[in-house]
């Protein structure tokens, strides 16, 4: 295909991505360097019969005019990144110099909003991803050995947790684990504690969110692994059988090595997706116990006062996090591409 033809074919999609993905990223970076204007103050001296008084009031007109003239706000450099809501450099330094033990330092760190969110996001990402791969693999092996009439039905129901809107899925589970809901009552009965509530404790909330994460994403791993099992080389499997490999050995030495590239694929996709965990926190109403980076941005943007600059700074930090997670994928794609040519 000629360059020119390629250009015209590719132009519409390139424009869409340029305008609504590339420019916003630049816009976020710029916004994060500015901070909202302070209100313009007006000092008036009122002189009455009992002497003079100075009064300070907000000059609404001048403030509005300033906002209109420079909607970005005033230039703040990196100060937003370093403030308490983000990297909290001063607080971290104070904690470090005043630390009694390393554990105490980390406990103090967990009280700062950004590090608290980072802590949950990373824990969630690295707990949920391996678990969903294991569960997805187990389901795939199980379904693969079922009778073929059953397979379609099982796949239909297995797809549901993944297809359903994340917010809706988490709401459905949230209502069930409510202390008056069916799962909540069951857990109270099992634990023999009528006051047990999954929403009240931080540890239980985290576990709930992670169970939801595995429930939501395991079907994806299942479908991918199940498709991989269909391409399993039967000859290798048969020769392993003839050599006397047990069922477990067949799985360990034939099936798992065959699926290994798919495991990497699922792991990379899921690492990226779990890193943006957001909807379950809204759905489970869990922000008192667990916050994530995406949730902080959402929280800054919503409400009456839209904290655009603060949200922008968190966004940039999140993008850096995504970039770090993404780098192995890029290296892999680069290697594949070089191998092909």
């Amino acid at each position: 295909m000629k360059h020119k033809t390629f250009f015209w074919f590719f132009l519409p999609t390139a424009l869409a991505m340029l305008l609504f993905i590339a420019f916003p990223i630049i816009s976020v970076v710029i916004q994060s360097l500015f901070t909202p204007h302070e209100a313009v103050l007006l000092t008036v001296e009122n002189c009455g019969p009992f002497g003079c008084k100075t009064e300070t009031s907000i000059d609404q007109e001048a403030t509005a005019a300033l906002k209109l003239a420079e909607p970005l706000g005033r230039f703040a450099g990196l100060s937003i990144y370093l403030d308490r809501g983000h990297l909290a450099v001063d607080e971290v330094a104070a904690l470090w110099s005043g630390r009694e033990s390393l554990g105490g330092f980390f406990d103090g760190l967990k009280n700062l909003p950004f590090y608290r969110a980072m802590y949950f996001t990373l824990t969630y990402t690295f707990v949920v991803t391996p678990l969903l791969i294991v569960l997805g693999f187990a389901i795939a092996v199980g379904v693969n050995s079922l009778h073929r009439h059953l397979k379609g039905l099982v796949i239909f129901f297995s797809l549901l947790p993944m297809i359903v809107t994340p917010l809706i899925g988490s709401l459905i589970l949230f209502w069930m684990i409510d202390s008056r809901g069916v799962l909540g009552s069951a857990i109270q009965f099992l634990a023999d504690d009528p006051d047990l509530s999954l929403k009240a404790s931080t540890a239980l909330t985290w576990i709930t969110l992670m169970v939801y994460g595995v429930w939501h994403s395991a079907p994806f791993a299942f479908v991918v692994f199940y498709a991989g099992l269909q391409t399993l080389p039967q000859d290798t499997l048969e020769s392993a059988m003839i050599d006397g490999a047990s069922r477990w050995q067949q799985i360990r030495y034939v099936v798992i090595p065959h699926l290994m590239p798919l495991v990497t694929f699922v792991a990379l996709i899921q690492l990226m997706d779990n890193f943006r965990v957001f909807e379950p926190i809204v759905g489970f109403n869990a922000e008192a116990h667990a916050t994530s980076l995406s949730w902080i941005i959402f929280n800054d943007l919503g409400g009456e006062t839209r904290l655009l600059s603060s949200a922008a700074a968190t966004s940039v930090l999140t993008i850096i996090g995504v970039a770090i997670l993404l780098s192995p994928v890029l290296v892999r794609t680069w290697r594949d591409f070089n191998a092909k040519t």
Partner: protein
Amino acid sequence: MSSKATQQPLGLRIVIYAFIGIWLVMAAFPFLWTLWGSFKVELDFFSITNWKDALFGPRTQATYGSSLTGAGYEGAWIQEEFWRAVLNTFIVCFFVVCTSLTIGTLGGYALSRSGFKYTFWLLIIALIFRAMPPITLVSGYLLPFFEWNLWGILPTSIIVLVAINQPFTLWMLHSFFQKIPKELDESAKVDGCTQFQAFRHVIIPVMWPGVITTGLFSFLLAYNDFAVTAMLLSKENQTMVPKIASFLGTTQTEGNVMFAVAAVVSATVPLFILVMFFQRQIVSGLTAGAVKG
């Protein structure tokens, strides 16, 4: 393929059936439970005394004279005007799917037919864009959209969702087009077609399976989105998911949780139908990127 050698011993088969059974309950039970419960009153669905109330609905019986009631649906759809959100959702989904498929097929086709090195870099850039959490982009949209008075209306959200969709659409269509033999359109070009005519008359008739699969995923992305639509739509133009989220704030205090439950069930039904009819396409779409690489 069930020879004697591959047959499982009875014990193993029981373990497998039990495991799959447990998974099926985990996957399906929450939906069925909520569907059944949405026809009850709140005191039955969230029962303090006995969990069986949600099954038989004694209080629903006492209030409405029958153990099932559509009161939650009536409240959500009519009183809270959920139908407006449903309408908005389908407008958004329809236009997102159409637009992103139109520009996506052109782009994906070009990527699959051009052998130059920049196609690789374009795909890599698309991959990076795919990894961006949408909410980080939203914080970049808000200020310009406020400035230019684009905030709050459906077309803005549609365009934004189309753009966010593009990287994924491109990757998927690219791999589908690569499976269509190049000789097909090259022979058309030998016969005197331009590149666009070859695309129009030779490729379009054979591309539909791939396009339908990609369209399904575009639809799901638009339908399931919360971050973009919650932030970019004004209250009157809300789609289903942000509308449900806003229900939570207002109804929990008024004791109308059942409105939210009914709305959630209403929003799940289209997805159910989708999976029922397009299961094969969804499975093939999920594995398209994975199995070949």
